[in-house]
């Protein structure tokens, strides 16, 4: 082809991709983390939404407690929307609290005696048609006013609040990164306009339209945006793999597991395209604005 790029590479074309890369890296991480947190919270929330726990406190005797548990289970069996109700074995409950109370207090020590733990009843409800609010509370209240129903609402609400905060923070970081890429490219384009002033004048005098001249800068910006975005996305991908691996190692079960799924990887893979598009549009706008000032 006759005539490749009309503009010779300058210092900006070598340094700008690295600046874009840093911002793309931050943006990729923010985006991937926000999506992953949202997905994890959704998984966790869905799990909790179909689950209610009933706590039957330790009665005067084991027999009394067992009788209350049986009464509750019988009552639950007749409630529409309840799919199943199972009493959690005492040993399982003890293992759940063992990390906080220790084996002795949980009743798993050599003595076999620990704190009086409530008996838990795991109730599976139909998420699409759950029992009416208050039904379960009224039902267990009739057995004993000390029996508590926990539909995990408080925990789910806190989780949703946390997800919203993460999403807001990620959105702010993403917006900052986009602005950063835009400003960087705008500054680089202004510098390039000054460096290539003579070439622009020649093209102008020969009869090139503004759009033709802008395309020369857009081509440079496209390359800088693609390069920078690709480097940033690659670095973010490496970190995501590390975070994913670390997440699997330290996953406690209390919080949702952070996993990067297809959606997160696609978002990161598309980042170079996004930075390139931003760079091209910014470069075009800057050049056209500058050219509009000359005859």
């Amino acid at each position: 082809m006759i005539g490749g790029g009309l503009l010779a590479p300058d210092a900006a074309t070598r340094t700008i991709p690295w600046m874009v890369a840093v911002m793309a890296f931050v943006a990729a991480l923010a985006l991937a983390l926000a999506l992953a947190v949202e997905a994890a919270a959704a998984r966790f929330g869905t799990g909790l939404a179909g689950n209610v726990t009933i706590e039957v406190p330790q009665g005067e005797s084991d027999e009394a407690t067992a009788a209350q548990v049986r009464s509750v289970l019988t009552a639950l069996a007749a409630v529409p929307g309840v799919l199943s109700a199972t009493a959690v074995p005492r040993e399982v409950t003890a293992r759940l609290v063992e990390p906080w109370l220790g084996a002795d207090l949980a009743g798993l020590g050599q003595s076999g005696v620990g704190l009086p733990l409530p008996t838990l009843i795991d109730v599976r409800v139909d998420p699409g048609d759950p029992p009416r609010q208050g039904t379960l509370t009224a039902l267990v209240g009739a057995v004993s006013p000390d029996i508590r129903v926990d539909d995990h609402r408080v925990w789910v609400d806190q989780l949703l609040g946390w997800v919203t905060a993460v999403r807001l923070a990620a959105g702010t970081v993403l917006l900052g990164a986009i602005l950063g890429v835009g400003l960087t490219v705008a500054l680089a384009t202004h510098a390039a306009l000054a460096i290539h002033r003579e070439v622009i004048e020649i093209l102008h005098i020969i009869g090139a339209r503004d759009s033709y001249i802008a395309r020369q800068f857009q081509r440079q910006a496209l390359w800088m945006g693609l390069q920078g975005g690709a480097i940033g996305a690659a670095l973010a991908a490496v970190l995501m793999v590390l975070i994913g691996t670390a997440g699997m190692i330290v996953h406690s079960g209390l919080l949702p597991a952070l996993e990067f799924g297809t959606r997160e990887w696609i978002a990161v893979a598309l980042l170079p395209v996004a930075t390139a598009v931003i760079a091209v549009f910014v470069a075009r706008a800057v050049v056209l604005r500058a050219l509009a000032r000359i005859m």
Partner: protein
Amino acid sequence: MIRFENVGMRYGTGPEILRDLTFTVEPGAFCFLTGASGAGKSSLLRLMYLAHAPSRGLISLFGRDIATTPREELPPLRRQIGVVFQDFRLIPNLTALENAALPLRIAGKTEADTRRHAEELLRWVGLGPFIEHYPPALSGGQQQRVAVARAVIAQPKLLLADEPTGNLDEEIGGRLMHLFVEMNKLGTSIVIATHNMGLVRRHGGRTLHLVDGELAPGGGDAP
């Protein structure tokens, strides 16, 4: 072709460096623009090739009043003007061939046509072996010839040249002037800015003589 009426020109907020210019260049004219260094020849050419707006007065080019012509209609007008700059103004990272071909490329001609025309023209000006060379690798005279090739390749209606033979030896300079004469015979109007009065005398034709930014008395004819 070109009509100037009471035209003045200044750079920024500086003083007027061209004042009260009134003249006409008819279609098919062969015209010299003379004057001492700093008289305003290059500035007058800038007005003619639409690189600068006048501070006052009327400029009409190809029958269009430039002041009232929308900005987006100026590029097609500029494509009808070929310009040879005193300092060549070649694009350094394009080869001689690519530089010469630039006007056709901008005009959207096919690549095959563009290449064929540019090669022919560069061979004609004696640069056949240098078509893939970049400007920094060419001598001043060779760069000047590339600049001339770029100016004439699109067969402009108006050719403006600023000291076109200044960097050339006599033979090549003669060939270029011959090219200009031939183009003029085919209908291209030519305006050549020069301080080489020998050149003016050899070729004759109309002369616009500038003195301190004004045309010399006598309707712009040389004294």
